[in-house]
């Protein structure tokens, strides 16, 4: 057991080194991302500021709380993008035969899929995320106690697992259809709107959907509401969301793993 884990860790770190080297090969290429990502997200929070200043707090969420939520959602997106970005390209791998290679190796397929590409560039998403979050925590009066920091880490882990489960399930569609089109763009838009803006803005039907069916409300909205004592739109659970989010994350991740395994049984190589 220990030797298996050791083996996996050494393979993962070797892949990570390769991936990082590959991405640093073109340092100038990073430059356009380094400009675009911060512009995109800082302008997003600026738009919220303009709306709140002109109008009113959004369903009781004032600007500091909105900033906190926006930052929390963005950080979990950023970390997800670093470790799980290969779940976005399952359909490409199915079409160009790259997936066959994973099946031939004596290792867990999902592990290979995820670990073979550590997206170092994804850290760029974390830069505006951390800045916006720290600023939000500061103006919203977030209490940086040890307990809260621990809760925050648990929430982030849970949120990342929920995201990974969602994209793995979507990617699995490619095993049957050979492609899932731009489902990734669709899911990203949905995630951005449901994790970086208060969920309570949307009609009850959507709130229920994003709580019970596709539980992305647990990624940042409910935990943020708990941290800041803001209006969560009616959902109150016993205990802390710092426990619920990782729990939901693990359950989703296990279900997604099951779907992935089931899909793999139906996998037929696209190549000749």
């Amino acid at each position, binding site marked *: 057991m220990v030797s298996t884990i050791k083996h996996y860790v050494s393979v993962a770190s070797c892949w990570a080194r390769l991936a990082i080297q590959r991405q640093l090969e073109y340092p*100038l290429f990073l430059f356009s991302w380094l400009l675009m990502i911060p*512009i995109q997200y800082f302008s997003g929070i*600026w738009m919220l500021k303009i*709306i709140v200043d002109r109008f*009113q707090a*959004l369903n009781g969420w004032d600007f500091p709380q909105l900033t906190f939520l926006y930052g929390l959602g963005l950080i979990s997106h950023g970390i997800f993008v670093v470790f799980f970005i290969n779940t976005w390209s399952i359909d490409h791998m199915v079409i160009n035969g790259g997936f066959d290679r994973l099946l031939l190796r004596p290792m867990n397929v999902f592990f290979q899929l995820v670990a073979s590409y550590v997206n170092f560039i994804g850290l760029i998403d974390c830069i505006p995320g951390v800045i916006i979050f720290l600023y939000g925590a500061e103006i919203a009066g977030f209490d940086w106690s040890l307990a809260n920091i621990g809760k925050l880490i648990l929430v982030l882990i849970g949120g990342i697992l929920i995201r990974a489960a969602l994209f793995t399930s979507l990617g699995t569609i490619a095993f049957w259809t050979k*492609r899932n*089109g*731009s489902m990734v763009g669709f899911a990203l838009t949905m995630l951005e709107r449901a994790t970086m803006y208060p969920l309570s803005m949307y009609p009850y039907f959507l709130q229920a959907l994003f709580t019970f069916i596709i539980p992305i409300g647990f990624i940042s909205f409910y935990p943020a509401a708990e941290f800041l004592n803001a209006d969560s739109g009616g959902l109150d659970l016993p205990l802390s969301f710092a426990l619920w989010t990782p729990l939901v994350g693990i359950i989703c991740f296990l279900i997604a793993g099951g779907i992935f395994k089931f899909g793999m049984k139906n996998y037929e190589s696209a190549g000749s």
Partner: protein
Amino acid sequence: MLQAYWYITKMKLLTNLTYRFEVFTSVATNLILMLASVFLWQTAYKGDAGAAQALSLQEITTYTILSITISTIFVCDVQNTIYYKIREGQIVTDFYRPIPLLACYLAEDIGEMFSALLNRALPLVVFASLFFGVPWPASFQSFLLFLPSCLLSYAILWLLSALVGLIAFWVMELGNMGNVKDSIVRVLSGSIVPLWFFPESVQNVSKFLPFQYTYQTPLGIYIGNTSTSEAFTSMGVQAVWIAILYLILAAGWARTKKKTLIQGG
């Protein structure tokens, strides 16, 4: 001569109409964006917060729906086309064509625009009408003024895009600067939040930039926030920007062409 361009346009139109699955997800993505934005405005307008504003909730809803719809029609792929053609080296064969290169790319984009009108914009408007009611224009007259203003907007956006594309001739490894430009345009054009809601100082600076004349101008005309005489003035400003950007593009293009030829040896 025109026949050649029409052929390019037609081919692009036909190719685009065959990709059904991509179309489906694109409509779904834009629909999510549209719903989320309208719900955001509805929350902001709750109670009497909307009473003293420049726009009513109905107007801002129409504005948002139309903004997302026309963003799917305004196809400016020229920046990516140039970028990829240079990276792959295909730009050389394109130079062999007996017609101006940029005009070819424009013809392609227009072909894509026609297909987007059918399979992206139309379904969006239908869905939006089901959810929030038909986004009627303020009057028939404002609709008539909206159309030419839209064309001028597209010209500005396309010229900006072509200018960014030119950068690729100088710095090939700089990555995709088109995306950087797009994220700036998205904010400063008023496509998400109309500039009328921005702080005074930003509005003043924005008057001297081309961006607000791409989305806010036609949309303002459509919802009737811009009077007829103002509409003509702003279309004049749009025309001036087109002239300025065209001159810059022509000058830049002439230099770039020389540079590529030297590179080719």
